[in-house]
Each structure stands twice: as C-alpha cells, then as structure tokens.
C-alpha cells in the first residue's frame, strides 16, 4: 500500500511516500540516495545490506518499509558523522577489508553486537558475524577489529 512512512534515519526525521511493502534496501539506496548500504544477494543470505533498526542489525533487503515506521534506522552514513566511530577506526587500523563491499554491513552488524554486548568474547563475535559474508577473506582482521573496538569502548567508558 502506498503511504507515507515516517522514521528516524541517522538521527533525522525521514518521511517516505512509497509502497510500504517495498524493501528498505531499495528505498534507502534509490529513493533516499544512501548507497553505502549494499546489495549482495537480495534474500537475507549475505549481510551486505545490514542496517540498524531500533537496536538490531537487520537485513534491509528483507525488511519491508512498513516495519521501520516510527523506528530508529542507522546506516553506514549515520555512524561516525562526527569523526570515525571506534569500529570504523579499528577496521582502518586492522585493514579489515579488501574490496570493501561487505564492509558497511560488517561494521553495522558489529555495531549492533556492541550495543547489546559491549565486551564480547572472540567466539561471541564470530557467532554474531557468521551470516555476514566476505568473499575477499578478511575474516581474521574483521574479528581483530571488532575485538579492538570493544576494547577501545571499554577503555573510553
């Protein structure tokens, strides 16, 4: 059904008039021009399209627009708006990317993890990240980076 959906997007109010069954990924990328959220599989199988809704990491390719009405949505463009976020910083330091295509989804999945579990073990990190795919094989560095970001947050707290 075509209607206006309102939600908070990266800290600002957003109102989108669209068919509310459309998937959030396409609304973000083409209607709102936020292309940092990537398409990889379209079937919730790769994690490239991961964004934060509320406090959860969700697959925006499988999240209809209506599901975010009144919610808080964060995309890669929304974190580190005032200087890099600790996770981004750690990704840079550990070179936790190669082609970088999976990176926004990885960072947002990690972001959701640290929201709920600020001091995860490496096993918890790996388990949480399991369904985020990286074809370049940056896995070890991604785990290192998330561990470090968690440590940095601890030190800063």
């Amino acid at each position: 059904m075509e209607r206006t959906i309102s939600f908070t997007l990266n800290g600002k109010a957003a109102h989108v008039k669209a068919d509310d069954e459309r998937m959030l990924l396409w609304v973000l990328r083409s209607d709102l021009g936020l292309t940092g959220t990537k398409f990889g599989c379209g079937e919730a199988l790769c994690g490239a399209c991961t964004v934060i809704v509320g406090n959860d990491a969700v697959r925006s390719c499988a999240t209809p627009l209506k599901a975010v009405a009144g919610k808080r949505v964060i995309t890669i463009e929304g974190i580190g708006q005032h200087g890099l976020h600790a996770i981004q910083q750690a990704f840079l330091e550990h070179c936790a990317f190669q082609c970088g295509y999976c990176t926004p989804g990885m960072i947002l999945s990690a972001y959701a993890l640290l929201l709920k579990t600020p001091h995860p073990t490496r096993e918890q990190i790996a388990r949480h990240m399991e369904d985020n795919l990286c074809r370049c094989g940056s896995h070890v560095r991604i785990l290192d980076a998330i561990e470090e970001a968690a440590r940095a947050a601890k030190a800063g707290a």
Partner: protein
Amino acid sequence: MAESAIVPGEMKRRDFFGAAGAGLFVFFGADLAEGQEPGRLPGRQSGPTDFNAYLKIGADGRVTCFAGKVELGQGAMTELAGALAEELDVALDTVDAVMGDTDLCPYDMGTFGSMCTPLLWPAVRRAGAEARAVLVQMASERLQVPASQLQVQAGIIRESGKPSNAVTYGQLVEGKRIERHLADVPVKAAGFKVIGTSLRRKDGPDKVTGKAQYAGDLLLPGMLHAAILRPPAHGATLKSADTSAAEKLSGVRVVKDGGMIAVLDERPDIAVAALGKIKAEWENAPAGPDDKTIFDHIQKTAPQPRVVGQSGDLAEGERLAASVIEETYLNSYVAHAPIETHSATAQIEDGKVTVWASSQAPFQVQRAVAAALGVPAEKVRIISRYVGGGFGGKTEADQGVEAARLAKITGKPVQVVYSRQEEFFYDRFRPAAVMKIRAGVAGGKIVLWENQVFGAGDREANPFYDIPHKRVTSAGGWMGGNPAGMNPFAVGAWRAPSVNSNTFARESHIDTLAMKAGIDPLEFRLNNLTNERVRRVLETAAKRFGWKAGHAPSGRGAGMACGMYSNACNATMVEVVVNRGTGAVEVKRVVMALDEGLVVNPDGMRQQAEGCVIMGLGYSLAEEVRFRNGEVLDTNFDSYRIPRFSWVPKIEIVLVENPEMPALGGGEPPIIAMGAALANAIFDAVGVRVVQLPMTPERVKAAVAKA
C-alpha cells in the same frame, strides 16, 4: 617488461585529460602483456603505444599516478602510491592513484594474473626515481647548489647544512610543463622508508564510511534501473513473451531490442517486480551433462591433448619403478561469487558514452561497448574505480554493454545490477577438470610421472620435482579454445587458473607415493626436489608448523602441499579434525610459507594470503556449481556455500625473505596448495583419500564408508 621503444608522442599524450596543464609528467611503459610488445597488445585501440602509465607532479605538490589497472581490493592503489612515495621522498598521503578510467589512464589490458606487482610496480618506481632526478636537477639550477649537495625530504629539496635554501616540488613545476620519458635512472637500493613497511590502505577511509562508490552506486538525474529477461537455462531459446502486464504498470518501460527484453523503472525493485509480470515461454535447452556426468563428458569432448612437459622415456620409468600408482582426480566448476554482482551505470551525453562498470578490464569493456553502439572507442569512457571483488570473474562486463544499449534506446542514464541469480548464471566458472596421474617410485625416488589433464589448463601441470621419466599432456582449459559443448556454459580465469586443479592432483599423488614408499611426506618431497626455493618454503613451513616426521595416516590430521605459480613458491601445512560420522572437516590451523621475492608491503601480502587461505577453504571443502541441462541450480548463497567466520582457522603466514628476486604478484600463489594440503590432512586423520574437490562432508563420509 622493459620500457623500451619510448618515443615522444606529444599529441597522444595531450589526449589524456589528466595529462593536460602544468606540471612534471613522466610517461612510462610497463609491458603488461606477459612478454608481448606493447604495440602488439591484443585489443589495443588507437592511442599511444609508447607508454601505458604516467605520473604527474602538480603545482600543488601532489603526485598522481595514472594507470589503467583496477583496484579490486588487492591494494594495488596503495602499492602504486607507496612506490612513488618511496622514490620521490614524499609522504604517502600526498600521492594519489587514478586507476581504471579509460579517459584518464593509458591503455591497459586488464587486472589479472598477479601482474600489478611484478610488472607495473617496478616501472612506477623507476618513473618516481626519474621524476626525482629531474626535480633535483631543476632545484640545483634554481638554488645554485650542485645536485650532490641537495637533500630531499617530504617533497622539499634543501641544501645540505643550509636548510633555509630550499624549494618544493610544487614550486619547481609551477607554471611549467615538463615532459620526460623514462631514462635509466636507478631506483633506491637501500634505505627504504616505505617499501617493506606495512602501508595504510589509501582506499580505507572511503571503504569504512560507505563513501566508496561502486558501479551500482551512481545516482544520476533521471536514471532508470533495468531488469532484463533471462533464459532459465543456457541454450534455452525464447518462444514468446507477453509483456502487456508489465507495460501497464505506471512508470515502467519495456524495451525490446535485438533479442533483449528489459523492464526499466526509476526504482530497481519496481523494475524487478515488473519483470516478473512478463509471461515468457522458452524452448528447452537440449539435454546436456550435469554435475555428475560432466567428468566423462569432458574427457570425451576435450580437444587433442598437447604435450606440456616431457623428459626421459616412460617405458624406462615403468621398468625402474618398484611400485606404480594410478589415480584420477576431479575438480568441479567453481563460481567467483564476489559479493558485488556485475553492475554498471551508463550515461550518454553529447555523443559521449560513459559507463561505470565493475570490471577488471575497463579497456576491454570500452571496445565491447563501442562495438555494440557502433561508435568509435574514443567516444566511450569506462570507469572502474572501486570493484567489489573480481577473482578473475569480472574480465568481461556484459552488463556494461547492456546498460549502454539501454541508455541509448531510452535516452536516459541506465543502471544494470545483476541479481545474485544472474551472477551465478552468467559467471564464467572455473572449469571442471579431470587429472589422471600414473606415477612410480623406487628407492624413495620418483622415477615415472605420466599426467593427463583435461579441462583445467596447463599452468603448473608440469611438475617441478626431479623426475627422470615423465610426460604431461593438457587438453582444453579455462582460457577458451575448447570445442563447442565441452563446457555447458562459459568458463574463465578463477584465482590462479589451472593451478588449483593441477596442484591438488600432483600434491595428493605425491603424498600417496610417499606413503607407498614408507617415507614421511616432507622428507619424500625434499628427496625429490632440487629447486632451492621450493625446498626453502617447505622447510620454513615445517619449522613453523612443528612438522613431526611420520607415516600417514598418523591420526594427527596434519597435511602438507607445495606449489609454484607466477614464479612465487608456496608451502602450506594444515591441521584438521575429521568427524567420521558426518564427514565434516574442521580446519584448525594453516601455516603457509611464501617466497614472493621482494616484499613491497608485508601487511598487504599477508592480507592477500589470508584471503587465499579462506577462499581456498571454500573450493576445497564446499564450493561446487550444480547444474543440469544448461540450468544452473545454485542461485544464491543458501545452496552455494562460501566460507564464513566459523570456518576460519588459525592462520600463520611466513614470508620467506628473498629480496634478490623482484617483487612477485601476491593475489594468487597463496591459494594454490589448499586443496591438496587438506586432502593430505584428511588422509592423515582418517586414512581415506578423497580424490574429488570439493571434499564435502558427503564425499568424506562416503570415502570413510568405502574404506
């Protein structure tokens, strides 16, 4: 590789947008066509033939390297910038690399075969050294100080002992235009500040913030997204298509052009939904092989074998052999499966066609787009700035041609992004292959080696072991030239083409021979190997791994394999745990020793090697494309499993120092030995040999049951 035949070509140089204006320019050639003359590069369009990269130092002091290679994630951008920072004595962050843009960069064949480091990189260094020499000479005149008394630091040239007498690179080139071609200026031999240190990736800030723009991230005014009707199987032909329901949707456009039916809308998901409204009837593809019958099929349809290695006399080898072992090794079709699917955005303005395309070979795409549109190549600009993984699978870019055709027809910018299903369907897979080996040992020495390769290609089929009597043949391969119908779909280069298949077969067989001879596999290899570099990586890996001599199967689950590719040497040792009940293989640890010649950027090299270990787990243990009668049955990551976080073992990469050897490409050699090392470790763990890749739980379980 030499920058020979450099002749000034003023007019041509000015054709490059980036080469206009003031500054110091150094034009140089790196023969990127593996020993071919630059002038004879296949597919070269008009344009300069005397150089294929250049650097510019502008009045702002910034250094820019223009090269047609593409940043695929391998870190090429950072390596090129690092080479210039080193030779010019400037800070890394004052150096930019403009890559993969056919208007700004001179012709380049494509980014594959691990050629960036061995070929382009040394030429970039020499160009940097040349530029530095020119600038020091200019400074000497300007400052009235002999060149020998000048020092360079961070782009500032100073008189030794009198630092106030100084001039910057930017000041020297201001208001001037200086052109040089590469002369024989020596590069730094020692005292490196950048080379050998681990560099911060130039592309990092863009990639962690989501700012990195891939080909499907362009948003142009009025742009339409296209969804294109595809056949259900390779070889299926369209009987009829009723597009009326799609046409009725508001805002949706249907285009039919030369066999292509496309649905376009301003929103990509709406275009895809509208495509689903087309009622198409297809004539079935003719019956063809499936993923089980393919191995017979390949042997039956392969072309005449070519001899790719021969010595001695096989009959004599047979006579000498105390025991002879024969085995047939199989390898399935494997997909590239980059997370970014093939994408392109095309725009036509005033007769100029611009296509942003995820491609490893923008100049090849330029030619294809020009041909499809019937325009000269100069009217086509391809930009491949960031590409979301290639691995050999983004050499062709049909989606770029489709986007350009649709842009021409609709008069609007058009974006084509393959669905995951299209990505699997149109992938040019690593070919399925059959490797038959018959080999004999006597007294711990290999005396006979007969190897017939079908489908894989010949790279590294000829063993580097010292074998007096051998014959290796190869029939068909990944590079094309196969008889029609041999492969039911297109095949192509997949990270270290041929070499994964050939190394799997050879190194599996070597272990079997060692077992037959009752000798530890490391000792057996060293017994039969005089190649010093391979010996060294084996010994290095063994030391790091803590290899304990023994007879397989020892139950420990330790395995090794070694290999060469592009002149790099690799020894891989792994530790696995095999579940006899389920057949599941858990990889605990991978130790890899690599001789990559001079290592330019150790962290970058490690990164490539780690990526190879993980990608190698995929083709070794899980990845295979299922198909039947032209239909590709794997359409997404649910059935086509690629490595995940839980698969990742402890990875230890040891870079063997070999600075006398020039820097070698690092993106491929580390992947080649994974298949055999794992097969040998599985044998060591449970005493069964799996001869088919991938070694899925089902196959391991079946092998255990049979034993």
